[in-house]
């Protein structure tokens, strides 16, 4: 399973996303990392080019709802259906909202790498 880890928007805090990248690789996943400050269009382009099975977006500046809506919009426009999830500073009330928009899961700061890996393994089974 191939995961594209992305930093959308202008937020440059990348410690968490890189920690997750290490963890996923150790757990046997293939990981492609976009680097900082990518637009949603660029992220979707990279996901397609790399044949990613899932997109993970790391957002810590509070713009997660704005960017999630954009992800949904861009994928709809391009008639794509790549599952995506969000990690970062996400208030509890926004987790349901993110799922309503279309995120398959949202991990708030403090989530364990093991929990994310576990979640991905269940996705692997269903995929």
């Amino acid at each position, binding site marked *: 399973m191939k995961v594209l880890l992305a930093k959308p928007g*202008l*937020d440059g805090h990348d*410690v968490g996303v890189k*920690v997750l990248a*290490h*963890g996923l690789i150790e757990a046997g996943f293939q990981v492609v*990392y976009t680097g900082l400050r990518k637009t949603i269009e660029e992220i979707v382009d990279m996901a397609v080019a790399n044949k990613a099975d899932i997109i993970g977006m790391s957002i810590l*500046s509070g713009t997660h709802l704005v*960017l999630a809506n954009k992800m949904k919009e861009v994928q709809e426009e391009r008639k794509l259906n790549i599952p995506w999830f969000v990690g970062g500073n996400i208030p509890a*009330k926004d987790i349901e909202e993110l799922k309503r928009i279309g995120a398959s899961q949202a991990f708030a700061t403090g989530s364990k790498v093991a929990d994310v890996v576990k979640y991905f393994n269940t996705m692997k089974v269903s995929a």
Partner: protein
Amino acid sequence: MDDTKTKTAKGKTAKELNVKPVYLESGLEVNPVYTADDTKNSGIEKEMPGEYPFTRGIHPTMYRNKPFTIRQYAGFASPEETNERFQFLIENGQTGLNVAFDLPTQCGLDSDDARAFGEVGRVGMSIDTLADFEIAFKNIDLDKITVSLTINGTAIILIAMYIAMAEKAGYDISKLRGTAQNDILKEFIGRGTWIFPVDKSVKLVVDTIEYCAHHVPKYSPVSVCGYHIRESGANPIQEMAYAFCIAKAYTDGALERGITIDDFASRLSFNFDIYGNLFEQVAKFRGGRRLWAKIIREEYHAKKDSSCWLRMIAGGGGGGLTKEQPENNIVRSAYYALISALSGTQTMALCSYDEAYTIPTEHSAEISLRTMQIMIHEMGICDTVDPLGGSYYVEALTDKFEEEIKREMKTVEKWDGIVNAVATGKIQESVSKQAYAREMGMQTGKVPKVGVNIFTREEESKDVEFHPYDPKGADVQIEKLKKIKAGRNNEKVKLCLAQVKQDAIDNKNLMPSIIAAVKEYCTVGEIVTAMKEEYGEFKEPIFF
């Protein structure tokens, strides 16, 4: 006799004594006991505080004369709100404020840029043109308040705006005070608000240093931040080593422009992080301070003692605080404050105990302030200089830190210097590997953390909170920008932007042309675009 010999722990390792070995976060092994033999080469017994190489502090009497400065952070969304806050602070007798900027301003995008959507005014003040600065500082006496601009990627433009605003208001800029963070090299390692390639980014920092040295000599144009490097995962040795390499890069640039070391070094300051082992942090600062003094004297041949001072703000400690059992953070912060004072800091700032998951309340901010005040007024921390000086353990560790920081700086040299090490991602890779090791250590319990992996209890999960974001604020800002663009002399704007680009092509100092451009209300985005046409953009090496 023989019996005492076998029982004594003097000079013995943990293995020899059959006790568990202890390693610091930096990898150094700690002996079970230290004696005078462990410090005999340090020369510390002959060294006085306020004397070169300043291991014991940069002033002879330190806090007995004046306690460290307490600085608290604050951020406001709009220039209008910032102005209100300034007025309030001045009325209440305060004299300084840190200004935080929103991400579009930090990344060089105007409020109406598509990439700025959803970000305008979110994490700080939004600045498009000089007009925003003029609103923020309306009716403010710049002689009475010192402003610290927390800005990096676009620092040259915002410093230019600050100077232009002061000039237009009739101030004598040769007397203008203030500081800017303006440490772009650390942005490539943590925080990520870089714009231009690494070498061009350093050139711009040096432009501000050169301009200020000649025209605004009381302004402190750079504060080198080990803080963010440590928060990104660096260990305490790397925090100091990378910060020193960065400071040397700016210093070298300044000297190449003909500024003397004694003119520049006294305007340089540092921002460091505190969390982790108490003795390790104290040794980090004492050893680091001694090494920095030696670098400035022995490598740069500074004449003035004050050029050799490691001036610092130390505190914060965000990386050490936890969302679990957050009240424990009050205790942690008190230790961080103690470490900072025992290390001889000039300025101290603490994170609020609830900052890991929410907007600090007035109450939590007050606890931080009181923590520092209790230490000053009840604990006797200011009574005598360098109270840990002469401790066998602390002196031995201080010596070790001086040596290890030096060794780590050599590693950076092997990577062809800091600019190359950052451009190729070498530093980012090493820092990120450590962040992962630390995180896994915490998650597996190898790195003990109270309330997180030991002494845990069932507790309600705490929700993350943000400052409420008002999208209407962004609309107002964009509307204001439109009006400015319609009302300015757009012919002059074009000429000014062309001049910025031409000066970039001719490798001139960009400060004069940027000051001229901001005076004509060129936007941050327009100026950055003109610069990008010549400099290009940083291509991020993908490392993790």
